[in-house]
């Protein structure tokens, strides 16, 4: 039996997945804060406790995510695109495009049936194409981020919004509120703007169904609805989409550990 751990060092949150023979036995999540290594240590211990696994039983620990080099206990790293492809196809075997929308980055990865990455597109270093955008707009709208999705589904149309930048978007939303535009319509406009960006990333890879959506933003029903409309395709979302990166690292660790023991 091989026990492995994957750590996803995200900008906002740390995610840890523990696998026993490719079966998930525990997941844990915590905020990265300003000392991500320390935060990750805590989440790591939490995950092992939940899995009832001792530190010595773990064969290999691999890390991924933007802070992968700061991961504690790690024996190596896995690229974020590689982890997305691996875990995306593991969870949804028909997926050939895995779209990962996180807090500060969005990626679209084209992959084969084995979960090997073939091509990818990344949006980084501009907050307008990632979860931060939705979070900032939710703040401007004075609704909780979790409420944005359900709210947007009530809208028949989207407000005219030109939000191309998080900073400008905030003032756009405030002036729409002053103009008495309805909150659901503003929320829908926010998701439509995001979906617009993400769908063109997917288009750039060529449309390869099925499309799986993972990452923290994949839990947002409003974003899923907008992306479906934009792509004109069914979007498949696995359970626990925010743990896909960590799962990908843990699955890669399992393969490497098995390869090494042979």
């Amino acid at each position, binding site marked *: 039996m091989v026990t492995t751990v994957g750590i996803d060092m995200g900008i906002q949150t740390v995610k840890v997945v523990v696998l026993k023979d490719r079966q998930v036995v525990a997941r844990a999540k915590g905020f990265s804060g300003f000392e991500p290594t320390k935060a990750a240590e805590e989440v790591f211990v939490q995950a092992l406790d939940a899995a009832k696994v001792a530190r010595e039983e773990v064969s290999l620990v691999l890390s991924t995510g933007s802070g992968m080099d700061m991961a504690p206990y790690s024996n190596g790293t896995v690229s974020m695109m590689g982890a997305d492809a691996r875990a995306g196809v593991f969870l949804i075997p028909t997926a050939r495009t895995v779209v990962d929308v996180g807090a500060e980055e969005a990626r679209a990865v084209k992959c084969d049936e084995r979960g090997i990455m073939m091509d990818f*597109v990344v*949006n*980084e*270093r*501009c*907050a*307008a*194409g990632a979860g931060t955008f939705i979070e900032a707009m939710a703040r401007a709208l004075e609704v909780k981020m979790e409420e944005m999705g359900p709210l947007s589904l009530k809208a028949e149309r989207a407000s005219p919004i*030109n939000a*191309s*930048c998080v900073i400008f978007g905030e003032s756009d939303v405030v002036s729409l509120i002053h103009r008495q535009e309805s909150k659901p319509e503003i929320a829908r406009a926010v998701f439509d703007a995001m979906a*617009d*960006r993400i769908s*063109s*990333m997917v*288009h*750039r890879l060529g449309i390869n169904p099925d499309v799986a959506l993972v990452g923290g933003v994949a839990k947002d029903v409003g974003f899923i609805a907008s992306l479906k409309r934009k792509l004109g395709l069914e979007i498949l979302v696995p359970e626990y989409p925010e743990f896909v990166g960590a799962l990908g690292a843990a699955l890669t660790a399992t393969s490497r550990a098995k390869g090494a023991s042979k």
Partner: protein
Amino acid sequence: MITHYGYIDGSGEYFIIIDSDKCSGCQKCVEACPQKALELVTEFIDLEDKTVAAVSEEHRKKIRYTCAQCRPQDNQTPCVLACSQGAISCVWKPL
């Protein structure tokens, strides 16, 4: 006048560049663009109004996404290739 339509943001530099002195207003680029991002506009040049090609207002702030489908390689996008006047060029520099 050379107009740079597009932007620089944290993710890189993305511009479609149109030289209105060279543009004849023939509309071939407008027809060639698969994203329908180009249009003819009236520009004030040397005290005259001239009809020239431009990136539509709607697409100026999302060139990176709009033009992603043509994925500029060697700056040979359909709009650039369609222009017989050599009036269009593009800059595509993701970080």
